[in-house]
Structures are given as structure tokens and as C-alpha cells.
């Protein structure tokens, strides 16, 4: 089927199936699935700038549904989510401006492909190392503190404690996440970096922000998943708008992909209740690698399937 906005031919059933798969990922891992969606659109010959903007639009819809379900399960820290949304919006605009600069230079497809390969590979290697180390140390089970907040262990625990101990004014409390005190700037910086990835590689950049929330801010994995999705609703809406006015969004493709994602997200959210934090992180490892394989394929062949 021809999509005139992005000037591309894509099978709508293919889009529905891709949407369904990344819907499951979104509900289960709290990530937008852009490491699959972006490469999957590239595989069909959609330019990277459209893949990035369209994926952001599709993620708005998907995150609304998944965030609402996580909120029902008590997995959302609203205060943290609102603060992070501010940082992410700034980062998303910076990322979108980078895409515009590459579009003008005429090498958006090559540069974004290489950045995607490096980022997705890095995330997989790091998550594999950390989750295996945590599981081997025998602290792989989530537990509940006396306060009722779910606690899960990470091999990055000492680093997290040091970051939480940095006294850069203003310090804030996050009782829902079980954090006594943390600098506002640390949260904003984590969100800003995630926002740059979101604006540059598309999606909600949960593959960067979710691990950052767990390892840098020390948020329990279940809360990081839900809060990340809540925050993505706000930041991805901004990202969609700014990419749309720059001519990078094919909303028709996004609408078709989203129809499959709705049902996939329901399955993913229910599945999080049956796995402990480190196991969720370990299961995440092969997914960015799949995105890497697709991007390498499009780079080598230079054309779509």
C-alpha cells in the first residue's frame, strides 16, 4: 500500500504485526520498542527521518494505554515522571535539531544507522553483564520493604548510592520510589540524555532511560517501567509535534502500527507480574541485537527487503 506522506510502499499487515510485537515489548519492558520499530520501517524503505518521527507518534498512543495499566497496578511515580518529562522534552528538541542538520547535509540515513548500531549494541552488552552479575550474586528476587515499596537489587548498587549521595541543591524526596533524597539535577540530566536519544533515534528511548532510572537513580525496576511509560506520553507527544512540523511524521503509518500495538501492550503488562527485576532485564538483552542486525542488513544491501 502506498503512503503518500512518506512517499513509501509498505504492507499494512506488516505494520500491524510489527506494532503487535513492539506492543508486547512496551508493556513488558517499559520501552517503546524503537530499536525494532525504526529498523523495521527502514527495512521497508522508509527514510530514517520518517522512521524516527513516525515511531514517536505511534509510541504516544501505545504509551497512553500501557501507562494507564501500569498506574492501575501501582507502578507509576507521578512526581518523578513529571520532573523527567521536563528534561526529556529539552533533550528531544536537541535530538530533532540534530536530525534536521543531518537532513540538510544529506546523510541522515548513514549517520543514524551507525549511531543506532553502536547504541543498541552497547545497551545489550551492558544489560547482559549487569543482570547476570546480579542473578549470580543471588539477589535476583524482588522483595518488599517494610514501607511497602518493591525493592530489587542491582550490581550497580554502590554506584547508585554514590549518585544519590551527591548533594547538589535542590534535593528532593521520592517516597513512592523509596528514595530519601536525590538531586533534582541528576534526574533532569538522566531525562535530558534520554530525550536526545528519543529525538535522534525515535521512540521513547526507554532502552536508555529505563536502565538509567534503575542503575543511576536507583528506582525499582517495576516502578521504572511504569514511570518511564507515563513520562513517555508527555515527552513523545512533544517529540511528535516538533517532528511533524519539520516534516518527519507519517501519521497514517503510525495509526496502522498502533492498531497492533494496543493488544500486544495488554499481554506485556500482565507478563511483568510473573518475573523478577533482573530476569526482566536479562530477557531484554537480545532485543536491541535484533535491531542491530536489521540496521546492518539495510546498510550492507542499501535497499529494502
Amino acid at each position, binding site marked *: *500500500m502506498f503512503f*503518500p*506522506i512518506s512517499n513509501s510502499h509498505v504492507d*499494512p499487515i506488516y505494520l*500491524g504485526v510489527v506494532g503487535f510485537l513492539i506492543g508486547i515489548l512496551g508493556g513488558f519492558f517499559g520501552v517503546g520498542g524503537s530499536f525494532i520499530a525504526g529498523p523495521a520501517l527502514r527495512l521497508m524503505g522508509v527514510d530514517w527521518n520518517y522512521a524516527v518521527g513516525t515511531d514517536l*507518534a*505511534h509510541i*504516544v*498512543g*501505545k504509551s*497512553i*494505554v500501557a501507562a*494507564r495499566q501500569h498506574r492501575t497496578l501501582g507502578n507509576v511515580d507521578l512526581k518523578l515522571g513529571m520532573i523527567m518529562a521536563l528534561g526529556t522534552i529539552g533533550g528531544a528538541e536537541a535530538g530533532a535539531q540534530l536530525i534536521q542538520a543531518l537532513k540538510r547535509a544529506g546523510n541522515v540515513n548513514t549517520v543514524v544507522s551507525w549511531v543506532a548500531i553502536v547504541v543498541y549494541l552497547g545497551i545489550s552488552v551492558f544489560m547482559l553483564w549487569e543482570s547476570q552479575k546480579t542473578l549470580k550474586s543471588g539477589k535476583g528476587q524482588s522483595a518488599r520493604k517494610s514501607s511497602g515499596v518493591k525493592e530489587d537489587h542491582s550490581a550497580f548498587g554502590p554506584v547508585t548510592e554514590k549518585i544519590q549521595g551527591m548533594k547538589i541543591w535542590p534535593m528532593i524526596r521520592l517516597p513512592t520510589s523509596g528514595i530519601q533524597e536525590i538531586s533534582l539535577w541528576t534526574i533532569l540530566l538522566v531525562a535530558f540524555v534520554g530525550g536526545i536519544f528519543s529525538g535522534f533515534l525515535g521512540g521513547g528511548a526507554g532502552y536508555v532511560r529505563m536502565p538509567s532510572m534503575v542503575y543511576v537513580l536507583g528506582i525499582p525496576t517495576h516502578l521504572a517501567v511504569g514511570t518511564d511509560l507515563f513520562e513517555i506520553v508527555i515527552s513523545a*507527544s512533544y517529540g*511528535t*509535534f*516538533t517532528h*511533524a*512540523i*519539520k*516534516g518527519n*511524521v507519517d*501519521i*497514517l503509518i*503510525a*495509526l*496502522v502500527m*498502533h*492498531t*497492533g500495538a*494496543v*493488544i500486544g501492550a*495488554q499481554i506485556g503488562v500482565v507478563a511483568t507480574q510473573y518475573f523478577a527485576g533482573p530476569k526482566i532485564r536479562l530477557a531484554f538483552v537480545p532485543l536491541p541485537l535484533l535491531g542491530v542486525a536489521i540496521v546492518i542488513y539495510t546498510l550492507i544491501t542499501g535497499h529494502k527487503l
Partner: protein
Amino acid sequence: MKKDTAKNLRAFAVELAIYSVLVTAYFFLVLHLLGEWLYHLETQHRYTYGGVALLLIAGQAVALDAVTTLLFRFLRGRWR
């Protein structure tokens, strides 16, 4: 427990089938009715296009979620 899982799976399979038919009809309708208009907006009025794109995706999210929730509840009740 196993009986419950089997019921849920059956409800889910039926839901998926009904949902697929509804969604297929829906997106062909959307592509047919809105395609030209959205293309025109995207080329001529980018700010309006940005706002409409957000409204469409958010509206679709809420509507489809309501449909799937209702379907799931109806089918689970039917096989209880």
C-alpha cells in the same frame, strides 16, 4: 488454575479474531477517508498537521483500548 488459564486463552483468541476484523475494517476506512486530507495538511499546514496527528493517535489509543477491554470483559463473562 489450569482451567482459568485455558478460559483466558480461549477468550483471548476470540478477542484477537474479532479485533482483527474490526481493526482491518477500521484502518482501511481511515486510510481511505483521511489519506488525502492528511497529505494535504502535511504539505500545506504543518502546525495543524502536528496537532491533528497527536489528536488522532491519542483518540485511537483511548478508543481501541476501550474496545479491547470491553471485548475481553464480555468474552470472559460469557465463558465463566
